[in-house]
Structure formats: C-alpha cells, structure tokens
C-alpha cells in the first residue's frame, strides 16, 4: 500500500513562495516611477512581447516573471476595466479596484492551485498631481503594497530599488526620470559587479501622461527614446524644465515614432477628446 506523505501547510506555502520567488528573480527587471509629467514605466526587454501595457484611460500595467501568466492577468485587467467603464462611467474605473482584483486573483491562485504564478505586477494610476499618483505592487501571493512614487520588480529588484529611491524626486523631468531608471536597471548584472549600459533596443519605455485627457498611455520608442537616453541633451532639458502644465508636450516627443498602430493613435487623442464631448465623459 502506498504511503501518504504528510506536508504541513506552512511547508507547502514556503515551497510555493520559494518556487515563485526563484522564477521572478531569474528574469529581467522593470521599474515604475512618478515624474513631473506623469508615471514612467521602464522595463528591460529584448523581445517584442510586451511587459508594459495600457489598462485604461489613466491606468497602466507592468509585469515581470512568466510571460503567459502575466499576459493572462493583463487581459483580465483590460476586460474588467472596460466592463466597469461600460457599465458605469469611464471615470469610475480606478487603479485601486484593478489592483484589488489582481490581488484577489493572485491570492486565489497561490492558495488553491498546485503551482503559484511566477509573476510580480504593478498597477499604476496617474493623478492630477505627482502626489496623487498611485503605484501598487501585487506579488505572487496576492499581497498588495502601495508604493511611494517608485518601485522596482524582478531580477535583482532590491539592489535596483535602492539606487532608485535615493535619487528619485517627484519633480524629475521625463529625460531625467528615464536616465535614472535606465541607470538603476543597468546598475546590476554586469560582469564582476560592473554597471552595464543599456541602449534603446534593450528597453521598453512607456508613460501615462498627466497632461492628456482621455487615454493617457503612450509608448516612447525610436528616436524619441534615444534622445531621452542621451545624457543631458541641452535642448531637451530646457524644454522639459520650462514647460508649463498647460502646454502640450514638446514637439519632438509628440512625433515619437511608435511601434504599434495602437499606440500610434494615442498621439492624437487630444483632438479626439474635444470632439467626443459629452458622449463619453
């Protein structure tokens, strides 16, 4: 007769946690931080499979870990957001509600399924001011943390977030914020503990733009990203610093070439919002 092995619940949870943590720390990292113009997502990503995406008008999503698992969560988040926005109103879709839904889902998966999800996700909502931005970290076991303005996840997240938190200010310009994030991502993983230099091709960068109305998410790629990465390009710095909240983003950013048709459209959403008028708002 086969022997029934006994494993204590503590042991089972510990094993699942360890499994999930190992999986998450193997991958590349992503950071999310607020800057004066919104919320910035930077992920180290060599593929065209997205780690950072749009959930709703003012809500973005970033994830690290196992792709099929967080992609499934992302789609569910988009569905929940669109369903709530359709049933109630677009303004009634909040980052906190999405974060809670993810916490519920990940908690249920962690306790009930044999294998925990090896993912860590971030839900960020851009507010009217940098202080009103919300960044939530949801871990594999369903716990949620409200992060104060900056977070790192995946890979050697601890080391990265140390460097980030020290230098982060809410009044960073977009260029400063991108360079800070990229420097933090490159601060680990080099040979012999040396920092690495990350190029535009190794990065996935997107923002939730505080000054836009309607859909605020847009990707920054190509020339726009390269120029942001170039240390202290004087023209760009000046524009960013002197830009007042009522002005549109600098022309160079608005023309940013984008990869997908989807994000391409976001370049012109300002006009659409005027046009939509009361129909959607």
């Amino acid at each position, binding site marked *: 007769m086969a022997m029934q092995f006994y494993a204590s619940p503590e042991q089972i949870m510990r094993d699942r946690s360890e499994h999930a943590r190992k999986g998450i720390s193997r991958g590349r990292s992503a950071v999310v931080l607020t800057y004066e113009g919104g919320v910035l997502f930077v992920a180290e990503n060599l593929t065209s499979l997205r780690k950072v*995406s749009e959930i709703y008008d003012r809500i973005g999503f970033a994830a690290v870990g196992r792709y099929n698992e967080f992609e499934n969560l992302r789609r569910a988040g988009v569905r929940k957001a669109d369903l709530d926005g359709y049933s109630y109103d677009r303004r009634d879709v909040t980052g906190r509600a999405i974060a809670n839904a993810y916490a519920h889902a990940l908690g249920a998966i962690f306790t009930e399924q044999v294998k925990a999800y090896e993912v860590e996700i971030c839900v960020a909502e851009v507010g009217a001011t940098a202080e009103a931005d919300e960044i939530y970290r949801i871990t594999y076991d369903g716990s949620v943390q409200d992060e104060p303005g900056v977070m790192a996840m995946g890979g050697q997240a601890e080391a990265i977030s140390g460097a980030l938190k020290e230098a982060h200010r809410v009044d960073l310009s977009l260029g400063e914020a991108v360079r800070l994030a990229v420097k933090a991502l490159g601060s680990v993983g080099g040979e012999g503990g040396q920092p690495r230099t990350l190029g535009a091709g190794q990065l996935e960068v997107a923002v939730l733009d505080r000054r836009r109305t309607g859909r605020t998410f847009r990707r920054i790629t190509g020339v726009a990203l390269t120029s942001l990465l170039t240390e202290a390009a004087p023209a760009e710095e000046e524009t960013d610093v002197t830009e007042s909240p009522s002005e549109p983003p600098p022309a160079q950013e608005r023309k940013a070439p984008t990869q997908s048709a989807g994000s391409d459209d976001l370049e012109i959403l300002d006009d659409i919002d005027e046009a939509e008028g009361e129909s959607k708002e």
Partner: protein
Amino acid sequence: MPAGFDPSRRLPDFFANPGTSSFTQFLSLNAPELLPGRRPLPPGYSADLAPHATTVVSIVCAGGVVMAGDRRATAGNLIASRDIEKVHPADPYSLVGMAGTAGVGIELIKLFQVELEHYEKIEGAMLSLDGKANRLAALVRNNLGAAMQGLAVVPIFAGVDLAATDPTKVGRIFSFDVAGGLYEETGYDGIGSGSLFAKSALKKRYRTGLSVDEAVTLGVEALYDAADDDTATGGPDLTRKIYPVVMSATTEGTRRHTDEEVGAIAEAVVARRMENIGG
C-alpha cells in the same frame, strides 16, 4: 456588480479563461444583460415608443472623410430633442453616425467604441477599417429582433484606411441595413428620414477630390436641403445657435469642427439660400 468578483475564493472565470479579443463576445459570456438585442421584448410593434434620430451624411474628401448630422430627434409629431448628437468618433481614425431609435443607436455607438478600444488594448494593434466595419455589422445584426418590433437603428461608418496605398482611397464609407448587411459606398452616402433629399443634393454637387472644408460646406448644405423637405430633420437653428455636428477623419486623426466654424458655414448657407432658394 456584473461578472464581478464573488466573495468566494474561487477564481473569477474571466481571469482563468483566456477568451477572445472582442468585448462583445466577452459580454455575451459574462454579462449578456448588457448587450443590446439580448433583452426579451414584449410582443407588438413599438416604433412610437422612443425618440427617433434622423439624418446623417458622410462625404469622402481628399485624405479622409467628413460626417455631418442634424440635431433633431422626434417622437411622433413632437420634437424630442433639439441638440442630440448623432455623429461620434468610433476611434482615432473613424467616425460613426446613427439614425433610427435614438436610445438603441447611442448604446450601439458606445458599445462599438469600447469594442474597438478593447481590441486595440488586448492585441496591441488596431483593427483594419474593414474589420471595424464588419464588427459594426455584427452589432447591427444582433439588433434584428428589436428592429422587427420597431426599434430599428441603422448606423453609417466612415474612416481612414491607414493601409491604403492609393491616396484617393484613403477615405471610405460603409452603410448598413437593419439585417446587418454591409455595403461600401462610393463618394458619399446618407442615412435617416431626410437622407433621400440630402443624397439628391449631394448627387448634384459632389465631385471627387474635395478639400475637407469644401466637404464640410457640402454636408451642411445637404442637411439644409433635407430639413427643407423632411419635418424630422432639423435645419441650422440660428436663434439658439444649434448647428449640425460635423466631424472629419484624416490620417491626422478625427476632429470635431467647432460650433463657431460650423456656425459660420451654416449662416453662409442660409444667406445664399435667401438669394437662391434651391441653392
């Protein structure tokens, strides 16, 4: 809360199920009560139940399309609304207008807008223009039961084909019938009770290669002609300053022409008709 998170620890179905990229299909599985056309209707013909929205015209112009709709909704012999908006952006590159039962039409447009945005977010890419038109046709088809009981709505869809290689084929117009039939139109089209007169006006005045501004003027004139002969279509209301809703879609995106712009054009049209009543 529809399809929400129940208090049990069970994983909500739509987290576990990868599903499709269509918001309508998602609704039909998780919240069918939110879909128009899924609601049981009492037997009988109820055409007089709700206000009717009327005339919308769309015109192909150089680099895009223009769509214009009058502002009147009627309930029998009464004016139900003087400032209803029948023309809306469907997404950043396309426009949708509706005629028929106003409530059903507004719901149809709202659902269509979410459908397009949802697909774009899930897939990371936009639908093609034909794909969008097909989705709209499917939504109209779902409303057939209600249409047979008098709650018919017919949309018109126009937009920019970003994949077009021929610059004269950038702007495209699609019309629909109540059964969900999808037809591509050449040059211009109109829907609603006044469309017969509006299209007659357009037939005489339309030519290819119009600029956006010329197409806007043409649209406002066509609506004037429709209002001239159809009581359910409202002309430009100069006393209340209520003018047609005019939108254009080009490769730069969609734009609603402001009330000042349209007002100036409408006043010019009215002034010309003072001289020559037939335009």
